[in-house]
């Protein structure tokens, strides 16, 4: 089975801190995605990547950046965390083909105090 692993299940940070969320997949998938999930808003796409060192902005990229130095790893970076970035963050991966489903990690609940 495909495994998408997010490094932390729960994370508590202070405003202004730089935060790294890590995601690793073990199935050689080309595509990787970062979403945030908020009640009543569903999943909103932050960034996605279709290849190593490539990245594309999603619908809500402000305040975030990403890094993909290796195919299996996709990192989300909050340069200066703010309270409105408190959320559940979900990483996903999929093969290059458009019609394939996404495989999700178990999520990181980030609280910014």
């Amino acid at each position, binding site marked *: 089975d495909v495994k998408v692993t997010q490094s932390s299940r729960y994370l508590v940070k202070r405003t202004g801190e730089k935060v790294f969320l890590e995601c690793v997949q073990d199935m050689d998938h080309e*595509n990787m*995605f970062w979403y945030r999930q908020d009640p*009543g808003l*569903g*999943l909103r796409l932050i960034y996605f990547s*279709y290849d190593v060192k490539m990245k594309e902005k999603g619908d809500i990229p402000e305040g975030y950046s990403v890094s993909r130095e290796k195919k299996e790893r996709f990192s989300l970076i909050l340069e200066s965390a703010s309270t409105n970035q408190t959320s559940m963050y*979900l990483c996903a991966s999929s093969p290059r083909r*458009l019609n394939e489903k*996404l495989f999700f990690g178990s999520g990181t609940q980030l609280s910014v105090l």
Partner: protein
Amino acid sequence: AQSVTQLDSQVPVFEEAPVELRCNYSSSVSVYLFWYVQYPNQGLQLLLKYLSGSTLVKGINGFEAEFNKSQTSFHLRKPSVHISDTAEYFCAVSGFATGGFKTIFGAGTRLFVKA
């Protein structure tokens, strides 16, 4: 641009009753359509997907969905629900975007099944 609208934020229903969760989408390009389910304290998993061909798609756990191109809808149905179907359901569309393709999700519908 793509967008997904789930028309009901919450749907309460009694056990063994039928249910329909509504989803409308818009896109300027061809898309593929998905329904995902998230059980309490669990990750998202695929229920079913529409790629092409027959407009009625069957998925896991007795769910099915019908693609209607003219109405740009992809409603999810189950003829008889169980308590265990209580979960949040997300409609999603995948289509080409700058640099690759992306999947956009709706806001979700919480299904509450009551005894």
